[in-house]
Structure formats: C-alpha cells, structure tokens
C-alpha cells in the first residue's frame, strides 16, 4: 500500500476531469435557409439592411463599384475574412491537433472558398502584439463554455461585412460560439468594429455534417480582366451611384430601411418606417431560392 498510495494520488490528479470538449471535427456543409440570395448569388447593391453600420460605412458602400474586383487585380483572389467566411460560401472541414502531451492544442478549420485555413489555438496562448501582421482569417483562441466553444479572433485584415462594399475594418474583433446538436453545428458570430459599427453585429448560421463532402482545391490566379490604366480604382463619386434605389424598388421596401443602421433593427422600427415608393404585386427576383432543397437562381 505504501508504494501504491503515491501512485494512486498521481493518477488521481492526472485523471480528475474537467468537463470536456464537444467534437466538432468533420466535414460540414452549410445550410442556406437564411439570407440565401445574399450569401450565394450575392447581395443587391445598396442593400445595407440588418447591419448596425455608421455613416462612414454607408458612404463606403455607396462609393463601391463592383468593377473594382476586376480592375484592381489584387482584389481578384482576395478571400473572405474570418468572420465572413462563416457566412458566405462556407463548406468547412474541422480537424483537431493534439500536442505531445495528448492535450488538445488547436482546432483547425478549412473553408472551401479560396482555401482559407484558420487555427483556433486552445492552449491559452496570448494574441500577438498590435504591430504584428494581420491575416484574412485573423488570430483565434478558444475556450470551452460547457458544451460550447467560445472563440475570440483579432488581427484580421480589412475586409467586408457584406459583399457589396460594406467594409469591416482591421480594428474589428469577433467572438464566436460553436454548439453542436446531433449532426447540426451552429456558429454564432458577434462582430465588434469601432470603425464601422455602432453596436455588436450578430449573425448565426448552421452546418450539417456531411461525411461525403469533398472540398478539393480552389485555385485562383489573377489576370487582367478589364484594360484600364495602371492605378485606376473604380468607384462612384459621392451622390452619383445610380443603383442605390434598386433593392427598395425591387422588393417593395422603404428606401430608408435599406440604408441600414441601428435604428432600423428593432421591432419598433416597423411602425416608424416610411412607406415604400414602389410595391410590386408579386415577387420577381430570387423568389424560389432553396425550393425543393435546390440552388438560388434569379428567376
């Protein structure tokens, strides 16, 4: 007993469990049962609905000319940021990495669009200094909150909140909560951006486990798509963007609501919103996205 007592103590200390992690590993296929037209074909120009943007972000959106992606060749292969990766073309593979002591060191994600890889460090390491380089996916650390994984990400490059020119700055951070229910994975993303948002912007999305998913490569090489003089940056001059009313007119919405902002987000806005200028009799755009579980076409 003398020999086994210390051994008992040692093994007991080693073996006392904290409650442990969930298993998020696997191939995950995103469900687009929310905002399908925005996330797949892409958002309408001037659609700033549902985002607590400030006026700077709004004006940036108004100046945005989608030609910029073609003309400014450095944008052609630009991937989504770590936060938008959860939202857009977001087939995902999740794997785990264990350290030499067999404790979980990191959780890795790979998104199919532009082959974006992110590491969520689980070893309590500090985030880099403010002078360190930023990446599109950012620097992420994770902790367990019972059955949820809480992830904190900093050091993202400037990117977008929505793919129609609404910017997200490199000062932003975001927090995620991952939770799994059977074969469904829900990830809630809460973005804080002191440059472009007036409050925390929360989006949540769900994936379904898809063991048969095969992502393959997403190789990008930029080429001159439109001949323009070097240094041309397509943009609308202030007050000249002709497309800003489209989304309101196409969908029978008050123009003010399409401009986004915190004041438009809460239930009381419904009663205060002005009347739309135009209300079509029937839906004419993206009306059947997702019908019968299929894709999203304009008509």
């Amino acid at each position, binding site marked *: 007993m003398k020999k086994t007592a210390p051994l008992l103590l040692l093994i007991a200390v080693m073996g006392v469990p904290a409650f442990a992690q969930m298993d998020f590993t696997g191939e995950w296929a995103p469900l687009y049962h929310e905002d399908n037209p925005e996330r797949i074909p892409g958002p309408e120009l001037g659609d700033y609905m549902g985002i607590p943007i400030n006026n700077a972000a709004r004006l940036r959106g*108004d100046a945005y000319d989608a030609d910029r992606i073609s003309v400014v060749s450095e944008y052609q292969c630009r991937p989504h940021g770590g936060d938008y990766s959860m939202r857009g073309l977001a087939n995902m593979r999740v794997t785990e990495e264990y350290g030499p002591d067999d404790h979980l060191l990191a959780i890795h994600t790979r998104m199919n669009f532009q*082959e974006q890889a992110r590491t969520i460090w689980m070893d309590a390491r500090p985030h880099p200094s403010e*002078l360190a380089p930023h990446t599109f996916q950012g620097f992420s650390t994770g902790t367990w909150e019972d059955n949820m994984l809480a992830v904190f990400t900093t050091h993202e490059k400037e990117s977008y909140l929505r793919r129609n020119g609404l910017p997200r*700055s*490199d000062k932003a951070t975001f927090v995620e909560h991952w939770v799994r229910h059977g074969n469904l994975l829900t990830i809630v993303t809460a973005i804080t951006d002191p440059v472009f948002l007036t409050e925390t912007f929360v989006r949540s999305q769900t994936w379904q486990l898809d063991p048969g998913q095969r992502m393959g490569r997403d190789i990008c090489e930029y080429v001159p798509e439109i001949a323009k003089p070097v240094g041309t940056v397509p*943009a609308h001059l202030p007050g000249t963007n002709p497309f800003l009313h489209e989304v309101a007119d196409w969908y029978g919405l008050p123009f003010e609501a399409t401009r986004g902002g915190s004041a438009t987000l809460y239930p009381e806005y419904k009663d205060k919103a002005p009347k739309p200028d135009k209300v079509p009799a029937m839906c004419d755009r993206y009306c059947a996205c997702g019908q019968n579980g299929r894709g999203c076409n304009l008509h």
Partner: protein
Amino acid sequence: MKWRAAILAAGVCGWLVSAAGQQPQQNFDNVKIQVTPVQKNIYMLFGAGGNVTVQVGKDGVLLIDTEFEPLVPKLMAEIKKLSDGPIQYIINTHVHGDHVGGNDAFYKLIPKNPQLPLNIIAHANVLNRLTAPGPNGAPGTSTAEHPGFPEDEYDTPYKDFYYNGEPIFIYHEPNAHTDGDSVILFRGSDVVTTGDIFTPDSYPFIDIARGGSVKGEIDALDHILELTVPADHQEGGTYVIPGHGRVCDEADVVEFRDMVVIVKDRVQDLIKKGKTLDQVKASKPTEDYDTEYGANGADRFVEAVYKSLSGK
C-alpha cells in the same frame, strides 16, 4: 546651439507633421521599444517616432531610419540583442525628424573602424534639405556639424548593393511624401520598407512644402505594389514595413492606395466644378474614411491633394 535648435525644430516639426493627429511626446523616458520579427533577416522596431527597420546577418547590421535622438540608446540596446555585428548602414527614407532624428546619436555610438565604415544613405534631396539655409537667410547646417547626415547620397532612380546575403535596392520615389523619399527592397528576405509613403493607420502626409505631391504619392504606392508579391490567396509573401503602424503586406497597401486614389478622384472632380479649397473641404471628400484614418488629418490631406492637383 543653432544647429541643435534647428534639428530639434525639424525633429519636432517632422514628428508633428508625419504623425497625423497625434500629440508630440516630449518625454521619452517611459517609451519602450517594441521589437517585431518580420521575415528572415528583418525586424521592425518601434518606439515613438517612425518605424525602424533592422536587417541582421553575418556581415553586420543595417538600419533604416533612426527615430528621435533621445531613443537611440534604447534602440541600440534592442539592436544588440538581435546582433553583435557592426552597424554598417543607415538608410533614411526621407527628411522628417522622426526618421532622421537619431542619425547623429547613432553615428556617435557606433565604433569607428575604417575596415567597416558606416554608410549613411539617403536620396540627395534629403541632404539638400537638411543642409539648406534656414528662414530669414540663416545659414544652413553642415555635415561637419552633423556627422550623422546622409553623405552617401544618391540621385539616380535607384541604388543597389549586397549585404547580409541578399540584394538590397533603394528606389527613389519622386515627389511623393516628400521629394527625397526612398523605398527599400530586401530581395532575399522579401521585405519592403516604405517610409511615410505608406501609413496604414492615418492619412498620408503629403508634404507639399518639401516637394510632395499626390501624383507622386500614388505612383510610389503603385510601385510598392509592383514590388510586393503575395504568397497565397493575396496574403503574406512580401511583407511591408510602413513609416508608422503594424507590419503589413500587399493587401494592406492596396486598401491604402485605393483610398488615396478615390479621394484624389473626388477632389479632382470638385476642382473641375470650380470649387475652392474651402468648398472642397466642406464637402467632406474623406467622410467615409475618417473613422478609419482619423478625422484630425483629413483637412491637411485634402488640402495637399487640392494643392497638388490645382497648383494653387
């Protein structure tokens, strides 16, 4: 004493004008030097003024820019942790005091060895401005008084040499931030140092009085984009050390360049419509960028763009 007052004035002035929206620091006692590894041989040091680039290797040490004079002992202490080798090169990206202020102090601290001479390099216009006569006909300062002045000047489109196992290119960027700007490429380490042509957290200070122009600024940014090559999906690869702010890469330079071009286009449009400078400022052509680059520097930026484009 006159030279000291002049360099101090240049230093304070330079710091004031190159660090948009920030208050000048008078007391450097509490400044801690932050050291950031960049890539391969290259490190970035930051204290209070402009970023300092440090290249280390078997040949010795190369510095780009020297911050403020009072910080030189602290800078030297950090450099010594990176390498015991001799400092053989100091390159100045431009004339402003927060980038050249430490030259003399470094010169005095570095042991003199004729076999390992110290080369202090900048474009000729930097030396011209440092030694130019002062206001009201006051005599200019001399290199004899300031051994840290960049006497190893160049006035060609570029200068190159080999050091610490890699080719180094110093490119003159005419009439950009100033008329003496240099951008330096470390071809082996794949790092570019830009001076204040690129300042990711603030509007560029286009120093019209010292030969800067918005056309030159944009041309310089475009040239930096030619030098940088991202490694994978528009990220990493060539790293960029800006005049102030964090380590960047091509994607970050693109955002900054695009901002300058877009604001320039707006101001150009207003000039075509016959607007005065005050009217241009009142129209707030930077309103969508102010929360990102700082509203405090907006008017100065717009004014420089206006003057560059209108010639007024």
